[in-house]
């Protein structure tokens, strides 16, 4: 097992390199010369050369990439052009906010998604199933920024239960978590339902019934366990998605986080910050996948045995 984890981690290295190349190149693929945005208009060629030298832009692309990567590996993400602070400090400041929001949203999606999935599968094609799946369809198709505004209108403006925006205390976390979590919940509920239905049709379930176990016991102890495998995969993939998907939600709810930092940096042409934010999101996706694979191996003996 340890061997497997090690191999999976090592596999991340080439993926990470590929991702870093793409993120590095973004700076060079965006229309317009980044130096133009750093230069005062009307500056002479000398000033341009100075800026290019300062950011190492006068060297060959490969060398630039090498330097950038070397710094990156040492945890040096460069300095922000606008704020003039180390990018790593900026990221460290906002990341806890994003992680907290993402974490709670994921937790919410998991718990309610699985519960609703199980309910829907149990009463398959009857009214609880149809009602839940209808609601789930709605939840998964609503754009999150719109949902966010709707929730604000209902719970903050009309009912006054939660603050409209900000990041002060747990009250201000409820609506953003709901906004992000509802979409994920819909997905998890659907996957759980399908997986449960599929697993319930297997032979071993028939055997369990024949053994006289109670249907509830079979459903929760055996069928659900099987059904959890695809659910875990989906959830793991969502880790990165939740962080990235929080962009609009952070925007609507005025919560500082990775997404807001990214948007602001894009608008200000603050490339080191853009690169760092994208890198964080990419790493989140990579780690999510890794976590998913490991969990799957832990949960499923068949995967484990295939490893050896």
């Amino acid at each position, binding site marked *: 097992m340890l061997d497997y984890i090690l191999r999976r981690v090592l596999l991340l290295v080439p993926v990470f390199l590929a991702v870093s190349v793409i993120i590095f190149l973004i700076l060079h693929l965006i229309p*317009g010369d980044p130096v133009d945005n750093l230069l*005062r*208009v009307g500056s002479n060629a000398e000033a341009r050369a100075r800026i290019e030298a300062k950011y190492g832009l006068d060297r060959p692309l490969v060398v630039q990439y090498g330097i950038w990567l070397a710094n990156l590996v040492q945890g040096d993400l460069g300095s922000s052009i606008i704020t003039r*602070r180390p990018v790593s400090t900026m990221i460290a400041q906002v990341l806890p906010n994003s992680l907290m929001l993402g974490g709670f949203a994921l937790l919410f999606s998991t718990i309610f998604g699985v519960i609703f999935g199980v309910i829907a599968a149990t009463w398959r094609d009857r009214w609880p199933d149809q009602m839940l799946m209808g609601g789930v369809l709605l939840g998964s198709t609503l754009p999150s920024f719109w949902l966010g505004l709707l929730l604000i209108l209902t719970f903050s403006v009309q009912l006054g239960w939660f*603050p409209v925006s900000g990041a002060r205390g747990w009250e201000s976390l409820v609506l953003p978590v709901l906004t992000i979590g509802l979409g994920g919940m819909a997905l998890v509920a659907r996957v759980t339902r399908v997986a449960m239905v599929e697993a319930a049709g297997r032979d071993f379930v028939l055997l369990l019934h024949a053994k006289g176990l109670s249907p509830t016991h079979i459903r929760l102890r055996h069928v659900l366990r099987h059904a959890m495998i695809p659910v875990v995969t989906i959830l793991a993939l969502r880790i990165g998605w939740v962080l990235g998907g929080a962009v609009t939600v952070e925007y609507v709810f005025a919560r500082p986080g990775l997404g807001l*930092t990214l948007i602001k940096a894009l608008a200000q042409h603050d490339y080191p910050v853009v690169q760092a934010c994208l890198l964080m999101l990419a790493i989140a996706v990579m780690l999510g996948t890794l976590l998913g694979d490991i969990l799957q191996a832990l949960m499923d003996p068949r995967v484990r045995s295939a490893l050896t």
Partner: protein
Amino acid sequence: MRATRTDRSNDHTNDTDNNQQREFDKMFMMVKKHLLAASVSVTALLPIGAMAQEAVFVLGTNEVGIPSYNLLTAVNTNSVYPMIYDNLVAQDDDLSFHPYLAESWEEAPDGMSWVFHLKSGVTFHNGKPFTSADVAKFIEMFRSTESSYMVDAIASVETPDDLTVKFNMKNPDPNILYNLASSFMGIPDPDAVTALGDDYGITEAVGTGPFKLESFTLGQETVVVRNDDYAWGSSLSANQGPAKLARITFREIPEDSTAFLELKSGGVDALLALPTDYLAEIATDATLAVAKIPGQEVYYMPINVTKEPFTDIRVRQAAALAINQPEILANVFSNYGAVANNFLISALPESKIDPALTISYDAAKSNALLDEAGWTMGADGIREKDGQKLSVSLWTQNDSIFRRLTEVVQAELKAVGFDAQIQTFDSSTIRDQYKTGEHQLAVRSYFWNNADIVDWFFGADRLGYPNVSMFNDPKAEELRTKAMTGSKTSEERVANFTAYHEYVTSQFPYAPIYQPEQNMAFNKDRLDMPTEINGTSITGVVMVDVGVKE
């Protein structure tokens, strides 16, 4: 002056083409219209933090994300800066200058020196007395900032005594008062800046302003508390003593519908910048009111003078005269704000050019000019010349207000026989696109309240962007040099800039469209706003007069 405007393009008071923020703001526009319509019955809620003498303000969406309150490293400033720092001089909404930290000043007749007499008894937030030595140190420190052009004309600073500062000039610069009044030149304690290093402006900021920095959370909020020693308010404020408010929280909310809902639900007391779209909504709410802030923005249509058919001045004039400013004001902007007939906001004296040269809608003349230039009306309503259609490109950025406005402009151009094809660009990349010089017409806007903006947008050394019109005219260059560096006194500068502005306008490198007003919105049950705002925005000068209703 060269340095100037990169700052300008990043600064919040500046260039709207930098309003990338808008793109995000506006994508919710449709949605929020419906949402707000649905929220008719809003239950009255108790304001959060409804304690006496405390208020919560929301900064404008383009002010979100200020990295620190250190103006020596700042690329952009926000509305909290003038709460913490006082300037030597204050500027009123009619753009006149008034005493602030300087009680009075004298300018040498040849413009080669300025003497400022400082108020006595002024102290910094840390208790240190404010003297001429601080001004001298500050000016020297300012030379290494992004905005150093503001003090370029100052050769040296003398301090004959503690309360007198003398600037010896390299060349006359009547604009020095404007610079000294800018939010970039509020005076910090130079020693505190040095002592605190990187922490300055984040954990602590020391000025002489009516409020002291209590806490600053990047991207979230800034809390300031009253400076109880304050006794040197500007004569522009009714109250020259300590501010009425004891504590102000400035929150940063990037999405303006969220900010508006905060105001509506009583979560905050005021929005420093209210988008025009909400004015109608505010009018229906008995608890909310609007205070007008002097406008600084102008919408205009640059005309690329190097592209056929606009190399012909008659065609340029025809396009400019086709723009129906009153119709746009009424239909696109619901009569909020005013029409623009030249390049500058009306508050500037340099905007008073010869009325015969101002650009106003005249379809008959526009048609006549096009006929004269040989463009004859075709059967399909598009003019032709030598078998060529009068087809031009019309660029705009993807913010919804620009898209809407550009469609109206397109229709107005069509009415005189232009076939304008709209091309939309992302607002963050359109500037790079202008540098290709491929555009013919465009619709854009800028934020600035000084006549040197004419130099910025029509100077021949900045073709493409910011000189979107690609305007390069020897006579204009001559007038420009005279205006920029050849003025000894303020009067001369006004005259020179008026002449430059007038000449540029007479060449039709642009068509003026509209000048919006700016508004702040506040909860009138909570806040007691002064009836008149004496400042170019909500500065410390204005804020000392703001109170809360008990």
